[in-house]
């Protein structure tokens, strides 16, 4: 039996009805098979920059920019022989013949998308198995396939692993995954939050709805891992994921459509309040002497989810109209300020998104350094405070940018975003999560 009474209608990224009366638990990371698959893929999928390895070996530039070992070089035609490298790499990584190991050659051999078999990850406790297995297997493959001798093998290691283990992460390496090394996580359960929005936007091929969906899935799944989405707060997060991230009841799409041509951020605030009122989520509490009506709700979790959907729509209108990502933090503060002043009810995540916006403004506008919104993630020191409601909007803003930043998402993401966009479940997460929800809804 369902734990929570809420049922939602599912829509796709273009506002087309997908299914009706789906229990929100069918969208829970604990039950939705597509979300579980996405999380597995995040651990299993690794990008290899074969062209990068070839260049590093040829120039001796290994372990980071400008770090050149003079007199050391190895001319190996890795890109040209990407097919055979991929075959050998697959054999090396496989646990059993015919298991779920995959190696895909991309961009004429410049990149490889590797899926490490689940059995390897299951045999350990750390998600780093993905990158360590691929990096080590790639070294073995190159050494064997190209008959590299004992005196050059170290250069192959450095070209693949980068400066690790002198550095904590694989600095200047050519094997990468979405997940950072555990030492770079700010606290327990932060792994899925440590993924810059640049990666997310590129994986979704800059489709803002899918970027927000993937980001919301990762953020809200992390909430379960962090110990946030449990007990009194589980429904709060499930509703947030459904309404903000997954366009439940088409609220995000409707709000954007309503304000698409001339709407301001303030107009989106007003549309959000109207929608919450017409759906019976909020109601008037009393009139103050000045004539101002205070609103109240008997379901604060649902109000939060509506406001979060409005916040994403507000980001899409403001950053979409300007085709610029830098407006996002301003939206986070003032959407919440305005909606609080419009209703007398707390803003998204009960003030935490507004607070996050204040910090993010400083660190994304060259006031105290920082970077553009594409470098931010849920593990970032200034954007980790909202529990999953800010970063999906940042991801959408990055997706909507037409090229206003010096450091573009492409430059920040390197090969990871581009390579992982080949995984359909990551690229079009909204569709796959909807399909999975429909397939399991009967059993909830």
């Amino acid at each position, binding site marked *: 039996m369902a734990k929570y009474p809420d049922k939602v209608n599912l829509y796709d990224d*273009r506002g087309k009805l997908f299914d009706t009366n789906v229990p929100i638990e069918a969208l829970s990371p604990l039950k939705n098979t597509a979300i579980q698959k996405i999380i597995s893929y995040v651990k299993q999928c690794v990008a290899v920059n074969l062209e990068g390895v070839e260049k590093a070996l040829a120039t001796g530039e290994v372990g980071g920019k400008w770090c050149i070992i003079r007199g050391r070089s190895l001319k190996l035609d890795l890109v040209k022989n990407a097919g055979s490298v991929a075959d050998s790499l697959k054999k090396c990584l496989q646990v059993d013949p015919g298991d779920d190991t995959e190696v895909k050659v991309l961009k004429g051999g410049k990149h490889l998308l590797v899926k490490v078999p689940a059995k390897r990850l299951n045999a350990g406790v750390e998600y780093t198995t993905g990158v360590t297995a691929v990096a080590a297997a790639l070294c073995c493959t190159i050494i064997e396939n190209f008959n590299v001798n004992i005196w050059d093998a170290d250069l192959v290691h450095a070209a693949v692993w980068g400066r690790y283990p002198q550095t904590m992460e694989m600095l200047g390496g050519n094997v990468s995954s979405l997940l950072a090394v555990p030492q770079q996580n700010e606290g327990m359960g932060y792994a899925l939050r440590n993924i810059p929005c640049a990666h997310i936007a590129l994986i979704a*091929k*800059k*489709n*803002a*709805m899918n970027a927000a969906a993937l980001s919301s899935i990762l953020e809200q799944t992390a909430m379960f891992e962090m110990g946030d989405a449990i007990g*009194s*707060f589980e429904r709060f997060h499930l509703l947030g994921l459904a309404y903000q991230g997954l366009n439940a009841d088409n609220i995000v*799409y409707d709000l*954007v459509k309503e304000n*698409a041509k*001339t*709407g*301001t*951020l*303030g107009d989106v605030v*007003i549309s959000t*309040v*109207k929608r919450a*009122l017409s759906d019976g989520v909020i109601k008037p*509490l009393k009139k*103050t*002497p*000045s004539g*101002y*009506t*205070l609103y*109240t*709700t*008997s*379901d*604060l979790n649902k109000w939060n989810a509506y406001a979060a959907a409005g916040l994403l729509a507000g980001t*899409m*209108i*403001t950053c*979409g*109209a*300007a*085709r*610029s990502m*830098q*407006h996002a933090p*301003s*939206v986070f*503060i*003032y*959407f919440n*300020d*305005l909606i609080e002043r*419009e209703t*007398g009810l*707390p803003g998204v995540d*009960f*003030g935490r998104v507004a607070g996050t916006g204040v910090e993010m403004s400083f660190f994304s506008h060259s006031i105290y350094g920082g970077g553009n919104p594409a470098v931010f993630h849920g593990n970032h020191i200034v954007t980790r405070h909202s529990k999953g409601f800010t970063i999906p909007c940042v991801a*959408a803003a990055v*997706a*909507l940018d*037409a*090229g*206003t930043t010096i450091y573009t998402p492409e430059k920040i993401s390197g090969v990871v975003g581009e390579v992982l966009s080949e995984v359909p479940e990551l690229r079009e997460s909204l569709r796959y999560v909807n399909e999975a929800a429909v397939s399991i809804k009967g059993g909830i």
Partner: protein
Amino acid sequence: MVDYKPQYYPGGSKIAANRRKYIDPKYTLRKLRTISDDDLVRLMGHRVPGEAYKSVHPPLEELGEPACPIRELVEPTPGAKAGDRIRYIQFTDSVYFAPLTPYMRAWMGHMRYRGVDIGVLSGRVPLEARERDLEKVAKDLVETEIFDPARVGIRGATVHGHALRLDENGLMFDALRRFQYDKNKGEVVYVKDQVGVPLDRPIYVGKPIPEEELRRITSQFRVDGEPFRNDAELIRFVQRIHMLRTEAGFDPNKVKDI
């Protein structure tokens, strides 16, 4: 559904009413002066009047946008369409009854203008937008009642002065002496652009708004004007938000119908 009319801002005081008025996009800000387009461009200093807009990326039509339902829906602003650079205008509002408080600039700006990026700091409020969009917004911000030539400064850098005493002519302190009081004309005149680069000819921005008028139109609470503490309704509102945020953080399920 219950009848709903946007209300913008709570509070029973005159200051709160002024805030509501400025935030409400249906209220047309009173125009007090005319600054020519060229002079505004010179004041901001991002381009020379008449010069073509520089771009940060090719026009969207040439660029070819990725397949995204939101991009298909959301109409880009003219500046975004053309690929304009993002530029800014920045204001410093004196604490002495200037028409706006820093926060008001953000609340008002986001209600009235599309595609703007507004940041609020204690002594300065930048508004960033695509260059040609910015010029349209800046016109409103400089020509209307929310700009007092004496107590509002257009300052891109070295903004210090919002909390300092006014000078003998009633002007806000400006370390870069961008604006001066022309005693003969009784008007404030800018001799430097917003970052302090000397202008080739001065730009007159009009007479300071009289003190009494400022006290009437300001959105600032002050103990020597209309104190915040006198607006019990607004205080209760702020306390309510604080209470709801805190209690919801403890257990959102327990916050019901209050």
